[in-house]
């Protein structure tokens, strides 16, 4: 377990020598951490009960490490040769480490550490892109992150004030007798911070801007990895909050708001990255269904972990396709793409229909188990809202997919960003395209072996 973090830290301090080397060091570090996390251990807590080692954090470490490695591979062409290549890798690794810390935190102070460790590299990553909107996006991200970071600190202060400690074990004992109003303020504050990380309402404003303005690899990263840490952290925290306050309703409302707002905003987007950005906001809404019934049904945690794994694979695949076709930026640019790039079109079909939740992709199993969990936990209204939203989301994904199979090809007008290439319509980046195919295959394979994942993820959390 500790090996994961050490390996990751080592990886991130080594850079500065030569650019290519850093890439392979980064990937190696990530894969090492997967292996380390894969070693089965009984659920327990370490570092004086401030960090949990259990199914939740174990899954998170595997998903985060694999997702980050995937991001690095899909960004090879985009990043290689740029001046900030090694810094990018280091920042990605640090942010990934932060997400891992978040996912295992069982102490409010560790939670804050994880929050800062993910946020600060993100500001830099967003701002590092040279695209016109990057400065604005970075500023927006920073301001929102700082604001919600403060509410999080406020929440932490209140919670530790009323319970006399910051560890979750202590909170679990003491909050039952604490005044409900104070607990509400504390939970709302901490959740606010986590929602910024997850990119859900009310902390979602930065997502579409950052997704559009940042580099594609960075965009793929920031819509995937922080969410994993933040949602598991939210689950872990809510699991110990006593029933004296009606937090399932609160989380349910946030979930409904996220999915509805994300979907409505995505409806008429023309830029594919902005569309994906809004779609991730709506995905957070679905992902919060099991969070809303944390601890109330046996299915909540396995379904959350499965959905997170599936979401990571599916979302990254979609971004990999976008990265592989750098000259195509708007929905119109994708017209006729199936002709010139049949395999990439296939990968995009798998990933976008996967995001809708069409079987046999893994998100389907994730979605239906989260719906089952939410219904079992008593939130039937939220299940109905999620289903209606799913149908609505199909509309904008099809707006993207349908023109691809049109018989008249498009003439992409916007120049590709870093390298000026003449025959832009047929430009295809090999590494990104390869990762898109691997991603699409894994989306399908994960869907078939989902049953096994659910069984492994079934063990309860360590407190």
């Amino acid at each position: 377990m500790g090996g994961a973090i050490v390996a990751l830290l080592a990886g991130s301090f080594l850079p500065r020598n030569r650019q290519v080397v850093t890439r392979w060091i980064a990937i190696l570090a990530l894969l090492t951490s997967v292996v380390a996390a894969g070693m089965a251990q009984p659920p327990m807590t370490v570092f004086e009960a401030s960090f949990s080692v259990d199914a939740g954090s174990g899954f998170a470490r595997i998903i985060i490490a694999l997702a980050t490695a995937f991001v690095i591979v899909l960004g090879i062409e985009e990043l290689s040769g740029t001046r900030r290549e090694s810094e990018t890798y280091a920042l990605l690794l640090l942010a990934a480490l932060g997400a891992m810390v978040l996912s295992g935190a069982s102490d409010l102070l560790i939670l804050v550490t994880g929050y800062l460790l993910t946020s600060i590299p993100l500001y830099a990553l967003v701002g590092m892109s040279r695209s016109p909107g990057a400065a604005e996006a970075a500023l927006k991200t920073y301001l929102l992150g700082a604001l919600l970071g403060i509410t999080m600190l406020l929440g932490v202060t209140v919670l530790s004030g009323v319970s006399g400690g910051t560890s979750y074990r202590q909170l679990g004992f003491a909050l039952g007798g604490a005044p409900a109003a104070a607990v509400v303020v504390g939970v709302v504050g901490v959740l606010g911070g986590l929602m910024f990380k997850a990119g859900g309402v009310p902390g979602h404003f930065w997502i579409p801007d950052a997704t559009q303005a940042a580099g594609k690899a960075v965009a793929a990263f920031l819509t995937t990895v922080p969410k994993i840490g933040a949602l598991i952290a939210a689950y872990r925290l809510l699991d110990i909050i006593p029933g004296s306050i009606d937090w399932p309703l609160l989380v349910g409302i946030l979930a409904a708001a996220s999915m509805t707002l994300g979907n409505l905003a995505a409806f008429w987007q023309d830029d594919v990255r902005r569309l994906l950005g809004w779609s991730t906001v709506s995905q957070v809404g679905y992902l919060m269904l099991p969070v809303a019934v944390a601890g109330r049904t046996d299915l909540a945690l396995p379904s959350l972990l499965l959905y997170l794994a599936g979401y990571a694979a599916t979302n990254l695949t979609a971004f990999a396709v976008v990265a592989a076709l750098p000259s195509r930026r708007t929905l119109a640019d994708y017209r006729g793409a199936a002709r010139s790039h049949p395999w990439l079109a296939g990968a995009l079909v798998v990933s976008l229909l996967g995001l809708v939740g069409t079987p046999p992709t893994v998100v389907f199993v994730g979605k239906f188990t989260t719906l089952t969990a939410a219904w079992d936990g008593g939130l039937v209204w939220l299940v109905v809202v999620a289903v209606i939203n799913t149908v609505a989301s199909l509309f904008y994904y099809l707006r993207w997919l349908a023109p691809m199979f049109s018989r008249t090809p498009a003439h992409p007008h916007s120049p590709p960003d870093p390298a000026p290439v003449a025959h832009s319509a047929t430009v295809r980046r090999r590494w990104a395209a390869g990762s898109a195919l691997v991603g699409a295959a894994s989306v399908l394979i994960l869907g078939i072996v989902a049953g096994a994942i659910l069984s492994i993820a079934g063990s309860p959390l360590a407190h």
Partner: protein
Amino acid sequence: MLSLIVFLPVLAAAMLVVVPRVPDRVARWGWLAITLVDLALLVGMWIGYRNPQPGELAYEEQLQWMPSVGSSYHIGVDGLSLPLLTLTAVIFTACAVYALRETDRPRPQAALFLFLQSACLGLFAAQDLILFFVFFDLSIVGMYFIIAGWGHGNAARSALKFFLYTFLGSLALLLGFIGLYLGADPHTFDMVELAKSVPFQNAPLAGGFVLAAIFIGLAIKTPTFPFHTWLPPAHTDAPAIGSAVLAGVLLKMGTYGFLRIAMPLLPDAWRSWAWFIVVIGIVSVLYGALVALAQTDVKRMIAYTSVNHMGYIVLAVGAAGVVSDSSAQAQQVAITGAMVQMVSHGLITGALFLLAGVLYERRQSYDLNSFGGLAAPAPRYAAFFAVAAFASLGLPGFSGFIAEFQIFAGSIGTVPLSLLALPGILITAALFLRASQRLLTGKTRGLSSGFGDLKTSEALSIGSLLVLSVVIGVFPRFLLDVIEPAASVVVDLVGR
């Protein structure tokens, strides 16, 4: 064996996609060969089929899939699924024959149809709710790409409407399945287990809501009034073989779901709401017939007669839910009629859509008024069309007669209200006679002059469907022997 039948087409489809540079000729003939092999396997299965005991299945296969949520890969065959599995294979074979002359991207088309065939076969074999749902959704995806990719007119829009509408239905279905899962003790998605445990026996309100979700999901697919609005545009803009599959196979998924899921798993709720379902069925019958009468577009007209024909099935399954002490015989007749109607409608409407496709292929028009006197330049076409039209209006000697006779015989006894649906037969007869008259008789005029007659592949595919309809109409015993035991099992289950 059953798994092989289900997955053989999709494996072939994967081969077509993966192997580079398959010539178009090979793709077309390979597609036909695979559908023929699949059909042969199914016929072999039918010959070896022995009616299983109530609550059991023939050719059963079960593998662990998601044990923690009580879902498994569980497939099997009984008297409800075997006729529809065979119908699926027949329709897809007919489509493969019809498409032998296709020039528009035959390779992806063959792959897509093979994929769709697997989805349809899987659905009719599935004995697990999640597996059923998986195939249900895959069939929607496959059909979407067929309409969007090979359709004409406003294909993209029609395909989108089809996808959104039926996807909404599939999610309503999923909600209902989750409700069934949570209502059963122990929690399971297995249909056989669920039929034994009878969920929601003491919770009529919850059972009613779950049935409502499942009913809406299946009713959209069937489609019944008022959920039918996606059907006419989807049919009009789909390619001929797409329409044939959509009407012949995909619509059956809805009505099959009533018999397979809604009735046996939610018997209490079904009985309480049977009168409502009967009314929906009668309205669909009359509404479909009347709107079809008003059409001048051949394909739209056939699409609306589908609403009418599927309405008879809904009427029958509704009437079968009205239980009294002496009704078991009538219920069984109604359900048998509903099953025969599914097979019959698949064959006849499939043939009619292929015939309409011939019109469009030659003249890019479905307008009844622009044709006239087709019998002179295209006698073969005229003969086929007339036979299909008579079969569809329920003339004795064709399968439709057997089906509709049984449906009314079984329904009117328990629900005298069913008499109200009888004018539907009359209206359909009128509209088919009128359409045949306009299209085929009189002086050759308009688009009809110089109309090329049916080619061998077209005649072969349409003809085989019509011959099967006659065979069922004249010798229905081989089909009824399979269906009747299964129908009485359903009657027992719904009467609990």
